[in-house]
C-alpha cells in the first residue's frame, strides 16, 4: 500500500496542472510519464509566463541603459539574483554569479581560481562518483598546470569512504570538490562534514549542487561552502542559466574569467580595470530573460517550500525502491531511501538499458539510459550503462506503478 500522497504538505494535483508538458500523449494512447527530472526538470507556466511577459513587456539590455525598459529589465535581472541569494542563504546577492550551467560554474572556478592559485603538484580531492562536469575541468588543469588529483572512493552501497577521505586530507589538499547529491546513486553526501574536515586541513571546498538545490533546502552559510554550483534547468527554471555561489572575499581575489562588456570598469586600448562583483564574472549581455525565469522558478519552489519538496520526493523514492525490489532481475544502485534523493538507477538482468528505456518509452514512460555523465562511476561498478528513473514534485506513486508495469513488460519481451 502506498502512503497516501497527502501525507506530505503538497498538493500534487494542483502542481501537475501548472506543467502543460505533462498533459500529452507521446504515443497514441500513451500519456507521458516523465521520470527524467535529474536530466532536466519540466517548467511550470509561471516560469514560461514570466519569460514571455519579460519579452513582451520589458525586454532591453541591462545596466547601462537609462530608458524605462532598460531600467525595468535591470531591476528584474537583479531582482532574480536576490531571490537566488535568499534561496540558498548567501550573505549578499553579489556572491551570486550567473553562468550558463553547473558545468560553466565549475569551469569558472577551475579556470580563474585554479590557474591563479594552484601550482604544479598541488592536490585537488574529488570523488569517484563525480559527474563529468566536476572531473574534466580539473583534468584539464592537471594537464595544463600539473595539479594532482585524488579521489574519495565510493563503497559498493554507493557511499563515500570518509576514512579514506581523512587519509587524503593529510596530503595537504588545496581544494575538495564534490557533489552534494549523486545523479546516479542518489546518495546525499554529508556535505557539512566533508567541508568541515576540508577546512580543518586548510583546503577550500567546491560543492556541485546540481541535484541538491532543486530537491532539498540548501544553506551555503550553514554548510560553510566556499563555492557552490547549480543549474536553473534542473530546478523548474529555464535552460541557458546556471549559478556559481562564492564567498565574497574569494570571488574578489580571483582574476576575471572572460573579458568583455559589463565585466569592466574602464578599458583602454591595452589595459582594463575589472568591475565589482558580481559583474566582474558576467561578461557580455547575460541571459536576462533566463534570470527572470529562474527568479520565477525560485518563487514557485519557495511557495511549495523546499522542506515539502524534499519530504514528498522522499515519499516517492521510498515507494519506488520498495516496488523496484519486487521485480525479478532489477538491481538498484546506491544506498537505501533515507540516505538518498529521488533517483533510482538500475540494471535489468539480460536486458541492455537502451532496450529498457525504449520499451518504457513505447509505454509513454520517459527514463534515461546510459552513463549519466558518470563514466568512471559506472566503470567502478563494472557496467557500461544503467537505466535511471528520477522524480520531482509533479510525479506520483501511480506513475511509479506504471513504471513497474512497464518493467514487467520488458521482462516479457526479453524473458
Amino acid at each position, binding site marked *: 500500500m502506498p502512503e497516501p500522497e497527502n501525507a506530505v504538505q503538497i498538493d500534487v494535483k494542483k502542481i501537475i496542472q501548472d506543467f502543460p508538458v505533462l498533459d500529452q500523449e507521446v504515443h497514441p494512447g500513451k500519456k507521458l510519464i516523465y521520470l527524467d527530472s535529474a536530466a532536466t526538470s519540466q517548467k511550470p507556466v509561471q516560469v514560461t509566463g514570466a519569460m514571455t511577459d519579460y519579452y513582451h513587456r520589458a525586454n532591453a539590455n541591462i545596466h547601462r541603459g537609462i530608458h524605462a525598459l532598460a531600467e525595468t529589465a535591470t531591476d528584474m535581472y537583479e531582482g532574480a539574483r536576490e531571490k537566488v541569494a535568499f534561496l540558498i542563504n548567501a550573505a549578499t546577492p553579489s556572491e551570486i554569479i550567473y553562468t550558463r550551467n553547473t558545468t560553466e560554474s565549475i569551469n569558472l572556478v577551475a579556470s580563474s581560481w585554479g590557474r591563479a592559485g594552484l601550482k604544479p603538484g598541488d592536490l585537488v580531492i574529488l570523488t569517484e562518483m563525480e559527474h563529468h562536469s566536476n572531473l574534466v575541468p580539473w583534468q584539464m588543469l592537471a594537464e595544463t598546470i600539473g595539479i594532482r588529483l585524488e579521489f574519495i572512493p565510493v563503497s559498493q552501497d554507493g557511499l563515500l569512504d570518509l576514512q579514506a577521505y581523512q587519509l587524503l586530507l593529510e596530503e595537504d589538499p588545496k581544494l575538495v570538490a564534490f557533489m552534494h547529491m549523486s545523479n546516479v546513486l542518489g546518495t546525499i553526501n554529508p556535505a557539512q562534514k566533508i567541508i568541515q574536515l576540508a577546512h580543518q586541513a586548510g583546503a577550500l571546498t567546491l560543492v556541485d549542487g546540481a541535484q541538491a538545490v532543486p530537491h532539498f533546502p540548501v544553506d551555503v552559510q550553514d554548510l560553510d561552502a566556499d563555492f557552490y554550483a547549480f543549474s536553473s534547468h534542473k530546478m523548474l527554471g529555464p535552460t541557458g542559466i546556471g549559478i556559481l555561489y562564492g564567498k565574497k572575499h574569494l570571488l574578489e581575489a580571483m582574476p576575471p574569467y572572460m573579458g568583455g562588456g559589463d565585466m569592466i570598469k574602464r578599458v583602454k586600448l591595452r589595459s582594463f580595470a575589472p568591475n565589482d562583483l558580481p559583474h566582474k564574472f558576467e561578461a557580455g549581455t547575460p541571459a536576462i530573460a533566463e534570470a527572470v525565469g529562474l527568479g520565477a522558478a525560485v518563487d514557485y519552489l519557495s511557495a511549495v517550500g523546499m522542506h515539502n519538496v524534499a519530504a514528498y520526493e522522499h515519499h516517492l523514492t521510498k515507494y519506488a525502491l520498495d516496488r523496484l525490489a519486487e521485480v525479478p532481475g532489477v538491481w538498484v544502485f546506491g544506498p537505501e531511501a533515507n540516505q538518498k534523493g529521488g533517483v533510482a538507477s538500475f540494471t535489468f538482468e539480460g536486458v*541492455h*538499458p*537502451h*532496450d529498457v528505456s*525504449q*520499451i518504457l518509452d*513505447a509505454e509513454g514512460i520517459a527514463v534515461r*539510459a*546510459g*552513463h549519466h555523465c558518470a*563514466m568512471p562511476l559506472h566503470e567502478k561498478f563494472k*557496467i*557500461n*550503462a544503467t537505466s535511471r528513473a528520477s522524480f520531482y514534485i509533479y510525479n506520483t506513486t501511480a506513475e511509479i506503478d506504471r513504471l513497474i508495469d512497464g518493467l514487467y513488460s520488458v521482462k516479457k*519481451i*526479453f524473458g
Partner: protein
Amino acid sequence: MDDLYREQIIDRYKNPRHRGSLAPNDISYQDDNPLCGDHIQIDLRVNSEGIITEAAFDGQGCSISQASADLLIETVIGKSLDEAKDISKDDILDLLGIELGPVRLKCALLSLKVLKAGVYGLGAGEASDELVE
C-alpha cells in the same frame, strides 16, 4: 516501436545467425560506442576476386546494435568489398525496418562503421562517424 519489427529485432538479438569469429581471417575490425558500451567485432574472409565469402560478428550491447550487426553480416556475405563500401545508413534502416532516434541510430550503425573501417583498412580507433553518414 512497431511490434512486428520489434519481434524481428528481438529474435535476431536472442538468436543471432552469424555470431562468432573467424580465424584465420582476411579482415578483422572492432570498435565500441562509448556512450552505452556497445561493442562489435567483425571478421571477414575475402577471396582473390575481392568477394566476401564468409563473415561473422561478435560483441555485446543492446538489441538494436546486435540485431543490426547480425542482419548486416547476412547482407554482406557474397558481396564484393566495393559493394560493401556502398552500403549506406539507409540500407541498415531498411534491414531493421524501424524508425530510430539519434541515440539508437548510433547503436544501429556501429556494425556498419566497424565493417567499413575494416574494409577500408583503417587502424584501430580510426573509425569515424563520417563513414556511415
